[in-house]
């Protein structure tokens, strides 16, 4: 199976598809919109979906589209990533505006992390988060990640905080 569909009692994590481009267009989460100043234009949404598929093709792991179980409407993306010129294991996510505040990102990030630990032998992972943005930092802390260090943003934006995920052996069974 090239891209397993993961399910929890509330969520389905499935392969991104072309039909996700429209719902993601203009629906980037409110905090990111504020940071970037604009909603995600359609070309960026297309690029996001294409790059997510390409990451999975190239590496065997990557982003899933998150939907509420039994609905196919995308509410965001989550995944295990290796990005950049010196890649390291990362957990990344975003949610569309209306989906925040319900624990969806926490649940989805935990599912992605557990999958990467189990299937790809990852022993830890990082999440780089805008240091000015408290909500995702709190979210990363919930499944046990701790701030590791501050880091410059790869594109020279606001400083980033690196959240270190707990090692696999420290997780409850």
């Amino acid at each position, binding site marked *: 199976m090239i891209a397993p569909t993961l399910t929890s009692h509330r969520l389905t994590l499935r392969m991104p598809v072309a039909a996700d481009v429209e719902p993601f267009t203009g629906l980037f989460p409110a905090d990111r919109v504020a940071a970037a100043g604009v909603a995600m234009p359609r070309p960026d949404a297309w690029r996001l979906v294409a*790059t997510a598929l390409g990451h999975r*093709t*190239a*590496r065997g792991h990557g982003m899933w589209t998150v939907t509420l179980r039994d609905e196919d409407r995308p509410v965001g993306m989550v995944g295990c990533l290796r990005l950049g*010129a010196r890649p390291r294991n990362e957990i990344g996510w975003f949610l569309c505006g209306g989906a925040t505040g319900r624990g969806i990102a926490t649940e989805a990030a935990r599912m992605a992390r557990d999958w990467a630990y189990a299937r790809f032998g990852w022993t830890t992972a990082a999440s780089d988060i805008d240091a000015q943005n408290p909500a995702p930092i709190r979210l990363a802390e919930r499944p046990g990640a701790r701030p590791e260090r501050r880091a410059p943003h790869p594109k020279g934006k606001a400083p980033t905080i690196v959240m270190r995920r707990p090692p696999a052996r420290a997780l409850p069974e």
Partner: protein
Amino acid sequence: MIALSPTPTLHTARLTLRAPHLSDAEALAAFWQSPRSLFIGGASPADGAVPSIQHSLGAWALRGYGLWTITLTATGQPIGRTGVLTHADWPEPELAWHLFDGFEGQGLAHEAVLAARSHCHGALQMDPLFSFIHPRNHRSKALAIRLGATLETDTTLQGDTIHIFRHPGGTA
């Protein structure tokens, strides 16, 4: 690699056109850092190569067409890219190509683009494709003409005047 992108492998006398691969990143980054990329947008950050490769793979998965990496069959060395691009502000799918440093003047681009174009017009049944070519990109213009393409019109792209060359249909 997993079989998610439906990129076919094409063979010519000297070349193999295959799906982009992360191992192409170094050659692609070097190309973008060189003056050779001037007419297709110019220098990109060195770490832009991996996302670009992933983007190409995703384009194949989403659209069923995209860019191939051109390699020398004898050695496997990547020497450039060709195939179909559809950027956001593009009017229609474009037949694009670029060769990395050191591989010009041997007819390799002609060989590669012809194979890509034949596949697009044939197996993929695409309408006759066009190519954007910067008016000062004389080597690319010469190749377009050698490929049988004709200057259709000029337009403006990202603030610059640019030629639109139209390719003949069919698989020749």
